[in-house]
């Protein structure tokens, strides 16, 4: 911010000139001053004023009635009663009644008060002088002198040892607070790099909780799977499924463009992480004709027939693929964990 003086002529003139001081004849743009107050009908006609008074009283009375209606609604309507009210639909009778009566009770207090103020209280406009916010030079000088006296008495400037050790103590003491934050959570270690998937774990259908067979998965179908051994009742279910959720589709092997994808598939059955590589939404808007899968959160689009590479949107890399095969019981199984971290990218991902 610049502090140099601004030439007076660049500032608009006349802002602080006394308004209204110039005669109108000399200056057609001069401030004529506050217009004279014009009375309202209520100011001159007592009957109109009485009408306003009654209107205000009526509003306050309506508020009282609405509060009584509120209490009555609270007692009368069961909490689970549903009624059809056009155009709102099948709504909770209690919520509707309580809201409207509470709204009316409050609104009429406000409306009454405002109507009172607008029609019966004085509406003469008054001017209040403003005073500069900044202190006068005398006050400032006094404060500076006081401060200098105080500073000198403390010996703060003179006794450097005290000053320096105090600064040292003050800057060190917040460290204890920072140290206490350490147990907010564990260190990352390899947590983001591994999931529950491991060699030999069967692919469990999220719908039926049964292991999947290759013949179950039809071309054009969409299935979600979790690793064998995980249950929705597990304590760590949410954390595990946040990494292990799997999306399974079957594509005609000749339509798969990516060599590795085909290699890691089983007869065209491919298993990709369901967790978007952008910021981790469960991505699964699968278009079976185009083999594109879209993220509902930020519209990253991946091509499942081409190694799930990103073809649109903010995701930075392809969805990780899980290498799958069939075990001797004829069920689909993982041939290992994902070979890269699932979900959003992070600094250590590499």
């Amino acid at each position, binding site marked *: 911010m610049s502090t140099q003086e601004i030439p007076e002529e660049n500032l608009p003139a006349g802002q602080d000139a006394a308004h209204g001081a110039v005669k109108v004849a000399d200056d057609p743009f001069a401030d004529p001053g506050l217009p004279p107050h014009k009375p*309202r009908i209520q100011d001159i*006609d007592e009957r109109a004023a009485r009408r306003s008074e009654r209107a205000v009283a009526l509003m306050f009375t309506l508020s009282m009635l609405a509060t009584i209606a509120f209490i009555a609604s609270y007692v009368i309507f069961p909490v689970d009663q549903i009624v*059809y009210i056009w155009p709102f639909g099948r709504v909770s009778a209690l919520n509707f009644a309580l809201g409207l009566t509470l709204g009316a009770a409050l609104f009429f207090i406000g409306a009454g008060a405002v109507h009172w103020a607008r*029609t019966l209280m004085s509406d003469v406009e008054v001017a209040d002088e403003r005073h500069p916010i900044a202190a006068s030079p005398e006050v400032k000088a006094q404060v500076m002198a006081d401060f200098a006296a105080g500073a000198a008495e403390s010996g703060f400037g003179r006794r450097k040892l005290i000053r320096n050790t105090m600064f040292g103590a003050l800057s060190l003491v917040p460290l204890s607070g920072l140290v206490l934050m350490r147990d907010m959570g564990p260190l990352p270690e390899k947590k983001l790099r591994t999931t529950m998937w491991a060699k030999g774990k069967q692919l469990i259908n999220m719908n039926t909780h049964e292991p999947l067979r290759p013949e179950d998965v039809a071309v054009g179908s969409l299935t979600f799977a979790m690793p064998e051994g995980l249950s929705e009742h597990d304590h760590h279910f949410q954390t595990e499924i946040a990494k292990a959720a799997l999306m399974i*589709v079957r594509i005609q092997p000749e339509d798969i463009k990516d060599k590795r994808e085909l290699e890691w598939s089983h007869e065209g059955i491919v298993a990709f992480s369901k967790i978007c590589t952008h910021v981790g939404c469960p991505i699964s808007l699968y278009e079976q004709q185009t083999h594109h899968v879209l993220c509902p959160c930020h519209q990253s689009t991946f091509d499942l027939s081409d190694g799930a590479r990103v073809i649109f949107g903010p995701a930075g890399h392809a969805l990780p693929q899980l290498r799958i095969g069939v075990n001797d019981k004829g069920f689909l199984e993982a041939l290992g964990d994902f070979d890269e971290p699932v979900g959003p990218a992070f600094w250590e991902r590499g």
Partner: protein
Amino acid sequence: MKKLSARRRHPLAAVVVLLLALAATGGLYAAFAPAGTAKADETAQSLAIEEGKKLYSVGCASCHGTGGQGTTDGPSLVGVGSAAVDFQVGTGRMPAQQPGAQVPRKKVIYTQAEIDQLAAYVASLGAGPITPTEGQYSPDGADIAKGGELFRTNCAQCHNFTGEGGALTHGKYAPSLEGVSPKHLYEAMQTGPQNMPSFPDTTMPEKEKKDIIAYVQAVNSEKADNPGGLKLGGLGPVSEGLFAWIFGLGALIAVAIWVAAHTAKAKKS
């Protein structure tokens, strides 16, 4: 009065009418249907195929080819099954009006009988999913809560929490499920129309499809409750935000204008 009017508008009224209609149709069918001989069935079936073929050559062959083998304008219908035909024609999607990102739901132009004939013909081209019976798709007695969980796992990503629909890539979209009949819901899951993936019985058994249908019926139909009031399209924060700005802040600013306005002055008397 209130009770009466509520009943008149009662969403169950539609269901009752539908059930009556179904019962009547079923009854009529039972009355007129030849009494359970396999031979008679076969004849009726081949008759339907014949009729369906005629309808097909008029309404469908230009895009799907004279034998359902498909052309550049339409996919092959061999093996899509009668369920696909019942869904596509029964929801008015087929016959398609114009090419576009997606064929929309329209007014149905065939009668159910004609649709059945078409379906029979297409089914005769190659085996595929069969039109479900009411016993398969009827949501009666299904587990709504389980259906909700399944819906959120399998369907909500495209169709929204309560089936209001949503966007897909390049102008395609997952349509709203409001007012879609249980049969068509079932068929859609079974056959995977257009870009929707299928959810075959092997990965999503019939019972689970029923659960899902029951859930959709419970949360997105005439009889769905919205205890809080207007559901604002069921679209979540965007419509809530618009409502808060337009009606919330709008109303408050209107009130503020009233509060701050100068009271009318008395006319010169």
